[in-house]
């Protein structure tokens, strides 16, 4: 195992700092447990406009609008939300508009809500079918560097990229 950070370290600190460094100005999300700490940091940051969506496909469209207007954004979603985005992702593909998404997995590792499993298992194949490049990460220490790499691929190489954060990291849905 790699370097263990201090006991109180959470990957969201580094990722939020990375967002600032990259000049991310919009974040769109439907609230999710696995991403809650990151969402809270973004919400508290006046330099980032955080938009709560009613459904995740709105966020894909919003990222397109942000790019047209010259801003970089990030879409934060749970794996279930990916299933609401597949058609809207066509726009990113068709127009070569960059997309950076962080996807927090359910239905993958120790899931105790059976209804989460189908979508959890389809998440990566669905993203790939929609031509989104997937970086799967299952160690907390590796999340920041993976997000950094994904951001480069998205914004510098004009691609749709999803960092899929394993349920092993968040532990969501594996209690009870």
């Amino acid at each position, binding site marked *: 195992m790699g370097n263990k950070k201090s006991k109180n370290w959470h990957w969201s600190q580094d990722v939020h700092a990375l967002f600032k460094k990259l000049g991310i100005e919009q974040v769109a999300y439907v609230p999710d447990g696995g991403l809650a700490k990151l969402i809270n940091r973004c919400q508290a940051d006046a330099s980032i406009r955080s938009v709560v969506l009613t459904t995740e*496909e709105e966020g894909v469209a919003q990222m397109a609008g942000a790019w047209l207007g010259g801003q970089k954004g990030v879409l934060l979603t749970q794996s*279930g*939300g*990916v*299933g*609401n*985005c*597949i*058609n*809207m*992702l*066509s*726009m990113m*593909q*068709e127009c070569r508009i960059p997309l950076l998404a962080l996807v927090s997995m359910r239905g993958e590792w120790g899931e105790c809500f*059976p*209804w*989460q*499993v*189908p*979508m959890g*298992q*389809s998440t990566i*194949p*669905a993203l*790939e*079918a*929609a*031509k989104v490049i997937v970086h799967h990460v299952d160690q907390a220490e590796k999340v920041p560097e993976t997000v950094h790499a994904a951001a480069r691929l998205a914004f510098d190489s004009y691609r749709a990229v999803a960092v899929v954060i394993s349920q092993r990291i968040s532990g969501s849905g594996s209690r009870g």
Partner: protein
Amino acid sequence: MATKKKKKTDWSKEVFKVLKKADIRQIAYVPDAGHTSLIKMAVADNAIKPVSLTSEQEGIAVLSGAWLGGEAGALLMQSSGVGNVINMLGMANECRFPLLMLVTMRGEWGEFNPWQVPMGQATETVLDAAGVIIHRADDPAEIAETVEAAAKIAFDSGRMVAVLIGQRVVGFKDWTK
């Protein structure tokens, strides 16, 4: 091979007969040109409740509810709509709700609108990833029997099934009209 004439309304009539035989009572849809005739027939039939959706994932939920209430239904949509149902399919998957979907394809044969191509090309893959059994029908003559077979798997074997009706069947959209 002899040239096939477009038999759009013929196959729709045959498919409607199949749906009636399967005792379909609800037909949910977001309108698509390829389904125009089928939708008209559903609306005209007193024994069928047509449900006009604002977005296709509503249809998965509607048909699941129909099944809970003892009725069989079918969802009519275009391939782009498939991209809107993937999360909702999780519910049908998890509960083993029968699901019969008729999908008219875009983005695969003579498509003139580039924005249709991504989802057209992804349709089979995402349905498959979501656990849906896929039957293709590219010849008007085979659509009705394919739908009949699909309905059997759906309602007798409790599965999610999609019949993909090839763009070749519906023909190129004529922009000059």
